[in-house]
């Protein structure tokens, strides 16, 4: 059972009338419970692929299936609802809503899902504890270190019980120890809770932590390592 599947996924960017292929006929399958890293040089199409999988951008051709539902034919609102229900995101930096505390950032997505405020608060505290942030729940993003902010983003990404968490170079702006700890935390969530992760990275240390490594170059998938 694949929680993520793409078929012939292609994305062309138009620049002054010249079409530049960012992604070429990508066929990718990720099974539930996998911990996958996507590696490749800058400009190889990692971010474009993650954006298309998350429904943040639309492909020029091809399809994306999340839990066997084709998201490329969905309306903007349907894709919003799908992201809320099935996809967690962690970006490189500045992931959090700055006017909300760590706990409120995690609560935000649950409240959008219609979870009661009391339950959302309790689950947010538990999830923050699971990524090692107990005691920092009421801090605003600007009162947290970069690593702590990324942990809040991970906690928020898993709080809704998604089918897959997409992380676009989550450790790129962290020192190696902090990055290592963050990946460890994700790895633990994968082991203990069976949450599926797909993360892009340049970092060999991150690659080593994942169970599967997919290489990309010039918008295409190369071999799997």
């Amino acid at each position, binding site marked *: 059972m694949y929680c993520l599947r793409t078929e012939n996924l292609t994305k062309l960017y138009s620049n002054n009338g010249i079409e530049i292929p960012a992604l070429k006929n990508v066929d990718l399958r990720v099974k539930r419970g996998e911990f996958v890293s996507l590696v490749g040089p800058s400009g190889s199409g990692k971010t474009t692929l993650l954006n298309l999988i998350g429904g943040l951008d639309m492909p020029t051709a091809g399809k994306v299936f999340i839990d066997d539902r084709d998201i490329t034919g969905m309306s903007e609102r349907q894709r919003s609802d*799908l992201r809320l229900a099935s996809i967690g995101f962690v970006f490189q930096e500045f992931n959090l809503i700055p006017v909300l505390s760590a706990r409120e950032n995690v609560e935000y997505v649950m409240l959008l899902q219609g979870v009661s405020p009391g339950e959302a608060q309790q689950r947010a505290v538990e999830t923050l504890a699971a990524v090692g942030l107990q005691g920092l729940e009421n801090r605003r993003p600007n009162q947290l270190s970069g690593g702590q902010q990324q942990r809040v983003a991970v906690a928020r990404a898993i709080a809704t019980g998604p089918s897959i968490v997409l992380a676009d170079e989550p450790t790129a702006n962290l020192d190696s120890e902090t990055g290592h700890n963050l990946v460890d935390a994700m790895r633990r969530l994968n082991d203990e809770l069976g949450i599926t992760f797909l993360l892009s990275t340049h970092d060999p240390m991150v690659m080593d932590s994942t169970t599967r490594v997919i290489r990309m170059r010039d918008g295409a998938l190369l071999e799997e390592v």
Partner: protein
Amino acid sequence: MALFLRIAWRNITRNQRRTFITLAAIASGLAAIIVFFGLSNGFHDQWITNSVRVYTGHIVVFAENYRDERNLNRAISDVDDLTARLEVLPGVEAVTPRIHINGLVSTARNSAVAVIRAVDPVRETQINGLRERITIGSYFEADAHRQILLGYKMAERLNAGPGEKIVLMVQAADGSIGAELFRLQGIFRLGAVDLDGSLAIIGLADGQDLAAMDNKVTEAVLILDSPNDVATTAGALATELAGSGYEILQWDELMPQAKEMIGLSNVFTYILLVIILIVVSLGILNTMLMSIMERTREFGIMRALGTRPAQIVRLVLLEAVCLGVLGAVLGVILGIVINGFLGAGGIDLSRWSGAMDLISSLKPIIYPTIHPGRIAIAALAAFLTTLLAAIYPAARAARLSPADAIRSL
């Protein structure tokens, strides 16, 4: 809703300088509107007050059917009883009987058509200060008999001065021509061009003699404590006098042109309101767009998390609601304070009192007055303007492509 309201509130408190500038724009625009409303109301109130005191009164009671043909036989016969009943009504400041008839005013050399007003000299000067308006000669003496006051323009036309003999001619109630000799006691200047050129004032008993009216008068004039109570008091009067054979008219029915002028002036006030609000809305639009652009990445993140476009619209509009409510409250307070400050001394327009003469000024000082209904209209308009100005920024925020928005830093 509570979630987005909380985020909206924190968003507007996070850039305090920008919020302060936006609020200042809304509040000062609204305060300007309220002050202008106050001045305009004050001007109208003063105008009405002045006009009713020299022309008609706030409310006038006629005998039923009198006005159709101006038949003096149908005038009010029991005026003392009527006056006594009207004086005790709440909100009534003064009641005075008058006779109005058209007639001819002549000296030995000249003559002119005039409106002849017969009055109770004591009551009349109480309502319009006629005694102080005498510029040449003097007011009626006590127990005056066959004394007449003329407007200064009329006196000029007749080339008449105090002490001069004046003959009044009218068609009397019995159909005969009534003519009596009077002596010019004084010349008045009411400040109303038409009255100063056409009005001749005599004592009530002399008027009744002249027009063979026995003890009748053509009307009872009421002055009220407040011009805002005209409709209520007229209603109370209608109840009090029901079935007694009287007709009750309000000042705006007797001076429809004055009412129209006020209506026109109100139109200009509302045009000014719209102009001010357009300027304010452009300011709000500008700051909201700036705030949206600065938060492009934030909106991208929110969209990535599964926030629907409609929820982004709601968030931005809620920020506008917070700004609109705060701005409206501050604007109302500021407007009332400025109005109160101006109202304490009034605004003296005597420098331009030539213009005021046209509309019969007794006092060329304007006191801004605040009508709560109008403040509510202005505050609501300012609030809705803020909301309207936020629609475009809200739509822009909702239309951002999440992928592009997240790329922007």
